[in-house]
């Protein structure tokens, strides 16, 4: 089925992007699968695999910064959380992703 193939394609493309940045896919397979599914859906409906956990503003310069993987544009924040906002990606040494809190960039 085409959705499953596109999920695999995104997994392949994104894996290559996040690895040099020190991240990997979350070991929580169910979460990863759900998020990739949402991204395929967003890509079909809105033209790009936008972040499932961030809202688009309609301004291209803002919206392009939340196309997955958005790590390059939010690096200090994500490095502090040791995960991306959605939790699709975590730092390479993370084995227990559920222990990582989700907090906005201005909260330590």
């Amino acid at each position: 089925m085409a959705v499953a193939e596109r999920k695999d394609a995104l997994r392949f493309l994104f894996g290559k992007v996040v690895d040099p940045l020190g991240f990997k896919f979350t070991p929580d397979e169910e979460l990863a699968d759900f998020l990739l599914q949402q991204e395929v859906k967003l890509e079909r409906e809105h033209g790009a695999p936008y972040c499932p956990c961030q809202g688009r503003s309609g301004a291209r310069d803002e919206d392009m910064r939340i196309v997955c993987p958005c790590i390059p544009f939010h690096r200090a924040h994500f490095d502090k959380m040791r995960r991306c906002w959605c939790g699709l990606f975590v730092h390479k040494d993370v084995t227990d992703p559920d222990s990582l809190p989700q907090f906005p960039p201005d909260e330590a």
Partner: protein
Amino acid sequence: MSGPAWVAVADDVSIKEGVPLAVYPKGLAVLVIRQHGELFAIANKCAHMACPLKAGRLDGYVITCPCHDWRFDIRDGAFLDAPELAISTYAVKEKDGKVLVRLEEARDGG
């Protein structure tokens, strides 16, 4: 085989200042760019989701991917927002009216 091979990719007159040209030496997608009189050759494939950079916007030494606006320096291939995610660059030169690109050495042993 000794040393990396230079491959002729185009007539030098066909590469106009500021107008990237897509070429395919040995099947590799390469973009040749003449900017400020100097030649550059980069992978014609974005580090994000592999969109061809050919249709991107060139501004100085920065090319912006048409798909989601990732920006690369055509001199060293670095992605401006995370230099770790550089695209490949290739040596390029003009000789006898031709533009030649040096591809990485073929890795098949022998």
